[in-house]
């Protein structure tokens, strides 16, 4: 076998493992700039009324002039989303581990979990306001948490159970018990699945928090801002609030994706960055 000369592949640097090269981003950047320009041009060229769609330049301007109010509201709502995300995701991972470890419990519980998943959870927002108090951030966290729970549960469970039978045979040949198999095979195997769930959950948590705000709460919340500004025909202000919600949502998602890339340099999905 010494006749084949195979050189070790150098391991990627931190920068290469986190993000792609700058030139990979150029096409997306071009589309972004073109999209904004098209929006601006169409709104101005066709003289579209401000309450239908304000031009991006107005939105950015409002974003800047109203930055204190908007930022404080955005942070308040982001705390709701983040809190809900943490509660919902940790609960889902714990439950998934229990269900994977004792399949009998899973068989008894999963039909109800799947049925519960079909319930439009956002409809419960007025109820959680009643339970925890509309002004209490916890009432929105609960909505966000419940929204996050199912996708993370389903993904984690799939990751824990989609282990190749030979991996289990191998572990048993080393006299491993269930706990060892969990720690050394099932949980690491589930990590990519868990991260997929966690990323989906960031989006759901933002939706839960903002829609939760719509049903009433502190005046200093992003959802309330959007609703109130739209109610008094201050559409540019409403759009500015939507914009900051989007930016926070994307940043939340990107942060989780960055952690994923850092912790899973071993995963084949990291291939593109190390070669």
């Amino acid at each position, binding site marked *: 076998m010494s006749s084949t000369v195979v050189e070790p592949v150098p391991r990627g640097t931190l920068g290469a493992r986190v993000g792609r090269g700058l030139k990979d981003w150029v096409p997306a950047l071009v589309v972004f700039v073109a999209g904004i320009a098209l929006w601006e041009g169409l709104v101005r060229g066709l003289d579209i009324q401000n309450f239908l769609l304000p031009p991006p330049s107005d939105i950015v301007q409002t974003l800047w002039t109203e930055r204190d109010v908007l930022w404080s509201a955005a942070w308040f709502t982001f705390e709701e989303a983040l809190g809900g995300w943490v509660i919902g995701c940790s609960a889902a991972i714990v439950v998934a581990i229990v269900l994977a470890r004792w399949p009998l419990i899973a068989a008894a519980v999963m039909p109800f979990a799947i049925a519960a998943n079909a319930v439009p959870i956002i409809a419960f927002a007025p109820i959680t306001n009643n339970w925890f108090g509309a002004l209490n951030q916890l009432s929105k966290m609960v909505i966000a948490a419940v929204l996050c729970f199912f996708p993370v549960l389903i993904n984690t469970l799939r990751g824990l159970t989609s282990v190749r039978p*030979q991996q289990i*045979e191998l572990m048993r040949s080393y006299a491993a018990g269930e706990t060892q198999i969990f720690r050394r*095979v099932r949980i690491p195997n589930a990590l990519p699945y868990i991260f997929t769930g966690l990323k989906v959950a960031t989006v759901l948590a933002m939706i839960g928090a903002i829609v939760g705000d719509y049903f009433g709460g502190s005046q200093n919340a992003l959802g309330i801002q959007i609703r109130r500004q739209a109610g008094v025909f201050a559409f540019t202000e409403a759009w500015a609030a939507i914009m900051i919600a989007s930016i926070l949502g994307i940043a939340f998602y990107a942060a989780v994706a960055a952690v994923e890339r850092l912790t*899973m*340099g071993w995963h*084949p999905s990291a291939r593109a960055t190390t070669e």
Partner: protein
Amino acid sequence: MTVVSLEGVSKEFGTGGVRALQEIGIEIAEGEFVSLIGPSGCGKSTLLRIIGDLIQPTSGAVVVNGKTAHQARLDRDYGIVFQDAVLFDWRTVAKNIGLPLEMMGWDRRRRSDRVKQLIDLVELTGFEGHHPWQLSGGMQQRVSIARALSFDPPLLLMDEPFGALDEMTRERLNLELLRIWEASGSTVVFVTHSISEAVFLSTRVVVMSPRPGRIVGIVGVDLPQPRTADTRESPRFAELIRDVRRILRSGGGLDVEEPSGEEALIAAEEGLQ
């Protein structure tokens, strides 16, 4: 000393269902290299798993290293290699090899010394920090073999370990495996469906018939040790291949065989005579 002893081992899958193995009896002595050969569905992989206590026989007695197969598994008396390397993607080469040692509670220092020895043995120096997806199929299988050898088990169970590799890699790894076997002095039970591979590697070839799997013949391989690339050229090698093929045919299993290049050549020669 007998390392593996099977007596009247039968296996049925399902209640009163498919009979996979029927009355298997064989004794394998220390230091032997025994191949199990037969067509697909003859239960040779099942038999290997019964020896490893990964499947329970329906009836019969299995003694491994002087104890029950179950106790032998708990004592980690064997290392196993599958057709697929079964490496853990999240572990580097070194950590994959060291996994059994970690589970046996070896401390870090002792572990890394041993892993280094094994990396040298299977010639993967420089790849310690690589992850499985960065390796070729042959290299992955070498990691898998190193892992099975890491804790120096008296018995090595191999389930078509080179079945998924190309012919050239397979022949190279065959030689490699023989070198390792001679160096370690362990006993090997090797499942394959390649006649030439079985003859080349083994001290004995156990020929099995298709469903239900039975032993239809055992061929003692008297080729001189150590075997080299030239071994394949010797007339005795061709003779032994012919013997194994005859027994396979009498057992009703030859039509399922896929002959390799040289086997096809020998078959053609036979046809001419």
